[in-house]
């Protein structure tokens, strides 16, 4: 397999696309030595970031676009989820566990993204949009344990 590989998908801001987005990204990521458990964590990260773009970034407006860019480099996996929505005023506050701007939410999206990645960065400009960057490595998994897990 080539040591570098790239995937870009852009789709409408509809929650019906969540399942497709996480399955597509996990299938792409499965080309390197991730365990099943880690692929499940990647699905959660995608679901959290895309849900945030749809609900917070676009306030559930269906006519907008969410873009995902994923790159495999050796055994490293990089993921960017981007929207062109309202942006985040106070990123530090948004990242606090259980900080949420709506009722009946756990405020755990960023907590999950951070826990399941080795690196997380949030780039956001009010009225311009938000880009979440996540990295995760499969390097510690040997051929053997990713096949049997």
């Amino acid at each position, binding site marked *: 397999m080539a040591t570098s590989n790239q995937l870009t998908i852009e789709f409408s801001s509809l*929650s019906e696309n969540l399942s497709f987005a996480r399955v597509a990204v996990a299938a792409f990521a499965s080309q390197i030595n991730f365990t099943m458990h880690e692929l*499940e964590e990647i*699905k959660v990260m995608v*679901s959290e970031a895309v*849900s945030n773009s749809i609900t917070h970034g676009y306030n559930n407006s269906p006519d907008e676009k969410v873009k995902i860019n994923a790159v495999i480099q050796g055994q490293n996996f990089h993921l960017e989820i981007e929207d062109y929505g309202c942006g985040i005023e106070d990123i530090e506050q948004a990242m606090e566990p259980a900080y949420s701007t709506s009722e009946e*939410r*756990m405020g*755990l999206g960023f907590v*999950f993204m951070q*826990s399941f990645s080795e690196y997380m960065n949030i780039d956001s400009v009010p009225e311009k949009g938000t880009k979440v960057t996540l990295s995760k490595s499969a390097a510690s998994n040997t051929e053997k344990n990713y096949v049997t897990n």
Partner: protein
Amino acid sequence: MQLHTSIENHTLVINLYGDIDMSVTENLRSTLEEKLDNEPVSNLLIDLSNVEFIDSSGLGVILGRYNRITRSGGKVILTGLKPQVRNVMELSGLLRIMEEYSSTGEALSNIS
């Protein structure tokens, strides 16, 4: 997502099928609220043995029902957690406040 409900031992038993994400939370929330409004139950048992995926939107719906049920003195019980579902449940802290059993039968026989 599909769901199936029944009532046993003062408990609303809900079996969920499929992925629980934001595309189904509205439907799940309103179905649960309607059942809880209309049925004389004290507890809620959520069987997740056919759920392969849940994210924070799904956990939010469960937390909302937990708040309602415990306010009136009832319990929320979870059964059939798959490893990936348990992973996010544990991290969210929900497993610390809810009871968990491996099967619905076992859970129902333990409800006083």
